[in-house]
């Protein structure tokens, strides 16, 4: 559970309805594979996500 600490507590953000179906899919999948640990943003993960999205976006455009 080392991913959960040190996030700044704040009020609930009821913005689920503002997400697209695809965005909900990404967030729900991250919740499942991380075991609900609310993974924090790290440079390593951001880099990996960007590499992944480069591949996804370019293959979607083909």
């Amino acid at each position: 559970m080392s991913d959960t600490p040190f996030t700044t507590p704040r009020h609930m953000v009821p913005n689920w309805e503002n997400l697209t179906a695809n965005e909900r899919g990404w967030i729900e999948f991250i919740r499942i594979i991380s075991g609900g640990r609310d993974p924090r943003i790290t440079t390593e993960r951001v880099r990996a996500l960007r590499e992944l999205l480069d591949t996804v976006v370019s293959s979607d455009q083909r």
Partner: protein
Amino acid sequence: MTHPHKDTAATKFINARINEISHRKSQQEMAREAGFKNSNMITLLKLGSTKLALDRVPGMAKALEVDPALLMRVTLEQSVGTTAAAALIECFGSPVTENEQGWLDELRDASDNSDPRLAGRARTALRGIFGK
């Protein structure tokens, strides 16, 4: 003493967080930060002898140093039951944590707002990034 809530996700989550921060914060301090007059409440919550009241979620999230939206999600199920929690989330939406909002921002920025689908290959790669 009975522990009717010991197997709920909320009790497991609270236990794990208390264990993680207990080396630098006492349960008495946690109780005070959460707004409990009685410090035994932390023990009762750990054991699953009592439920965390929904109106205590913001204070408890502060005490446990977690995002309140995350704690609210697990507490909702403990508080009202799985079916009612699912209905509430269907009506009002699922609370998004600050970290999740950050990931959404990254997703939008890195994809040039192209709203990418989560296809099979992306799922496999995501497991590598976020999995245990």
